[in-house]
């Protein structure tokens, strides 16, 4: 269950960052409220995950999902370049997360 918490926390972090970018552009209340809710939920789930998993592992995976998600959204939603080096690093993140889960 702790791994589910970390992954959902990572997804909520991506959502929070997306809302932060929207807030920077629009300066409206709704993205601000959503960004606070998104990050609060993300941190709450991180603390739940850390009840059973080591904090270094949880933090690294959470950061990895944020970077992975940001790049994936950039490439598939905003048409950023899908270069071989970006795809290599994306799979490096994915592979190490899966391996970390396997050895935990």
């Amino acid at each position, binding site marked *: 269950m702790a791994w589910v918490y970390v992954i959902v926390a990572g997804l909520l972090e991506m959502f929070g960052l997306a809302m932060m970018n929207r807030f920077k552009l629009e300066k409206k209340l709704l993205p601000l409220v959503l960004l606070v809710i998104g990050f609060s939920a993300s*941190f709450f789930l991180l*603390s739940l995950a850390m009840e059973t998993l080591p904090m270094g592992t949880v933090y690294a995976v959470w950061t990895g999902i944020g970077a992975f998600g940001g790049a994936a959204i950039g490439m598939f939603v905003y048409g950023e370049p899908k270069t071989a080096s*970006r795809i290599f*690093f994306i799979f490096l993140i994915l592979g190490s997360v899966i391996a970390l889960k396997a050895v935990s």
Partner: protein
Amino acid sequence: MSKHWIFIVVAACFEIGWVIGLKHASTIMEWGLTVVAILASFVLLIAATARLPVATAYAVFVGLGTAGTVIAETLLFGEPFELVKALLIGLLLTGVIGLKLVTPGEKPKPEKGVS
């Protein structure tokens, strides 16, 4: 060295602080400090990346944060050190930093004056 690089280092220290807080805080005081550390790391990171190359600054920040949390849990909280786990975290970090460095990013605003 620009003072914004110092912001990055201090932001990473706050980052390690809130990670420790999320795992170990038990009193209202400790939870309060955890929230302050979260906000401080955000504000400092945003302030610093406004003036530094974003990808490089973020790579340094996340490297310090990840290494710092692993070192803190091993040295301060007696989490057993496992070589395989540490190597995998290093590999994951390589992926995160590599991704940031090869991503065409925003250009920082020029520094005002000499700092």
